[in-house]
């Protein structure tokens, strides 16, 4: 239980979160060790760390999910702590256990706490025991009990995998006749995805909001909350826009949610950063799950509270006590710009960054691992960049986010940036008409607007004529690739010499 200073930290992750952890560690005077797969040999996180160690092939199973290789890298480099980031091994109790078995500090909760919270049925029981409301449901997928519950609660109901995550093993059942087939299908999917076919039932909330409480617990039994985040806007059950505070949330409801989250965390013996997720239906809220790690959307809390949550994680892991959270201020919104095609069911997009313009300005933060020449490969998740906008109030944060998204430009990979811009600029978002069905309700069959398409056609014609743009990799065809300063043609030359064109 005594503290141990962290001198060298291995980051068992990649992408923006690895880079973000490295930055905080560096500012804290902690040496950093990156690990990388073959595909990430010259990725931003591998270049940013003081040391970088190869793990293996690009497939996650051989690299970022390879516990033995990561432990070897930690020992070879003399690291004394491991930060798991999010995703990959961050919620695998066996990883936390292996790290501690090698007398390294795991920057996260103890393995047994993680295991208890990772099982959704067990977590649900824990919540009930801690007095936290849960969605009415039944902890079994047995047909008789399920039918009885569904008839009583009313359709639609939701079938969920006990070991679930990411929407897999989940089915909405609209009527009694579809129940049996859904139970079978969900169990099969859960077995395939998690090696655990257990499913359970919950009442399906028609138009809920997703609201979550940021928690920090220390090794001395203290747990504090850093407010809430609204993460209602999702695609395929995954968040794409998050904000803090949750707009329109009644103060009394917020207080009850924070108390419920704290009670649950104390009951679980929670340590380090974690998040209690709830569904909010009017003024009623229901426990969903605890994410026993840093969330993707933690920056909105950082901007609102003026604290570095990764620094808090590292201090807690070194045995320090959490202090009282500071007073929150203003509002922050995060948009996840994913390498996905928003015109085709958000299917993943890949490619190499040919040109990139990142937004900047007061209140704008960008967390990304991408730069010109970087590649988005099919091996890893689709997060390309997180834009976070802070404002003195929601309206300022929202306006800054619209302006920031309009400054964002990426050539080489499709992204969701233009869709996000339209969501944030929409009247529905402005009045905070939030629910997990926001996209279906307000952005069905989204397409880029006609003005953008027109500009794109003109730009494409200029590119085709060699009058605009970079070839892949950042070389400019626009005069910028010339010789020394004096001889170099001005950016004007290319366009200026081009009086008439088109079909000659």
């Amino acid at each position, binding site marked *: 239980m005594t503290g141990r200073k962290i001198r060298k930290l291995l980051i068992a992750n990649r992408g923006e979160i690895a880079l973000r952890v490295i930055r905080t560690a560096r500012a804290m005077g902690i040496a950093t060790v990156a690990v990388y797969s073959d595909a990430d040999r010259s990725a931003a996180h591998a270049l940013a760390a003081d040391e970088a160690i190869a793990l293996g092939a690009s497939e996650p199973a051989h690299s970022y999910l390879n516990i033995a290789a990561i432990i070897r890298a930690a020992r070879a480099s003399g690291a004394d702590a491991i930060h798991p980031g999010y995703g990959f091994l961050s919620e695998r109790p066996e990883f936390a256990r292996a790290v501690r078995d090698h007398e390294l500090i795991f920057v996260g909760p103890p393995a047994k706490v993680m295991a208890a919270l990772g099982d959704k049925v067990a977590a649900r029981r824990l919540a009930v025991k801690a007095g936290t409301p849960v969605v009415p449901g039944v902890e079994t997928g047995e047909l008789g009990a399920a039918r009885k519950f569904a008839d009583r609660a009313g359709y639609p109901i939701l079938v969920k995998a006990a070991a679930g995550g990411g929407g897999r093993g989940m089915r909405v059942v609209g009527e009694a006749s579809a129940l049996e087939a859904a139970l079978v299908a969900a169990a099969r999917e859960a077995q395939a995805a998690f090696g655990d076919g257990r499913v359970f039932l919950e009442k399906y909330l028609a138009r809920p909001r997703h609201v979550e409480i940021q928690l920090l617990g220390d090794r001395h039994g203290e747990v504090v909350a850093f407010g809430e985040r609204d993460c209602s806007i999702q695609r395929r059950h995954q968040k794409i826009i998050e904000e803090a505070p949750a707009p329109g949330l009644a103060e009394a409801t917020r207080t009850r949610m924070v108390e419920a989250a704290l009670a649950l965390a104390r009951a679980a013996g929670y340590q380090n950063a974690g998040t209690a997720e709830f569904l909010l239906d009017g003024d009623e809220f229901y426990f969903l799950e605890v994410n026993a790690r840093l969330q993707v959307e933690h920056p909105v809390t950082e901007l609102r509270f003026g604290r570095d949550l990764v620094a808090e994680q590292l201090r807690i892991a070194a045995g320090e006590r959490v202090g009282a959270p500071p007073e929150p201020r203003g509002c922050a919104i995060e948009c996840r710009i994913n390498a996905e095609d928003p015109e085709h069911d958000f299917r993943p997009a890949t*490619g190499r960054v040919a040109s990139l313009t990142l937004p900047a300005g007061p209140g704008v933060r960008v967390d990304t691992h991408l730069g010109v020449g970087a590649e988005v490969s099919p091996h890893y998740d689709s997060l390309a960049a997180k834009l976070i906008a802070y404002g003195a109030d929601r309206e300022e944060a929202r306006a800054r986010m619209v302006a920031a998204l309009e400054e964002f430009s990426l050539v080489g990979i499709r992204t969701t940036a233009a869709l996000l811009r339209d969501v944030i600029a929409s009247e529905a978002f402005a009045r905070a008409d939030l629910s997990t069905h926001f996209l279906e309700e307000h952005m069905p069959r989204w397409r880029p607007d006609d003005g953008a398409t027109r500009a794109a056609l003109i730009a494409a014609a200029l590119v*085709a004529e060699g009058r605009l743009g970079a070839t892949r990799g950042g070389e400019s065809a626009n005069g910028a690739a010339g010789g020394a300063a004096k001889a170099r043609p001005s950016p004007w030359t290319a366009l200026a010499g081009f*009086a008439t064109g088109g*079909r000659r």
Partner: protein
Amino acid sequence: MRLRRIDGGPACEVEILACDGKSIRVTIDGVEIAGEIEPAADGGAVLRIDGRRTRVAGARARHAIQVAAGPAAFEFVTVEGRVGGAHHGLAAAEVAAPMPGKVLRVLVEEGAVVAHGQGLIVLEAMKMETTIAAESDATVKKIRVSTGDAVDHGQILIEFSPAPANPSAPESPAQGE
């Protein structure tokens, strides 16, 4: 030139009439548009048309032209000829790969007549199977890829010629052209 989004849809005829480094005049499908253009030092430019400012940037990939107009990203292919609804009922003279991937199955043969919506090729990309379907009735003129081929963004997979005359089709009045 004729540009079509890589995923299909109608092609647009874009012609740059004048571009003197400050003003630009183009026609898109015959409609004339005038505006201002300012090239940026990084190879992009700012277009100002009808009071709307758009930052554009672009790059030429092997088979496609990639551009960004503000936060929106587009991929175009240049297509040949003046085909379209008014000409033989063909939506496009070819079908291109909408993403890099591997050809899992070719569902048609050269010379076959395919119907709008009919599956042509199954690609594996990002560990998902995607079926490329015909955008209009057509005859398969040439298949440019084989099972197992790795294909790149915008690579032409199949070329079409018009479907055989079909008196019941609504486009039939135009077919004699």
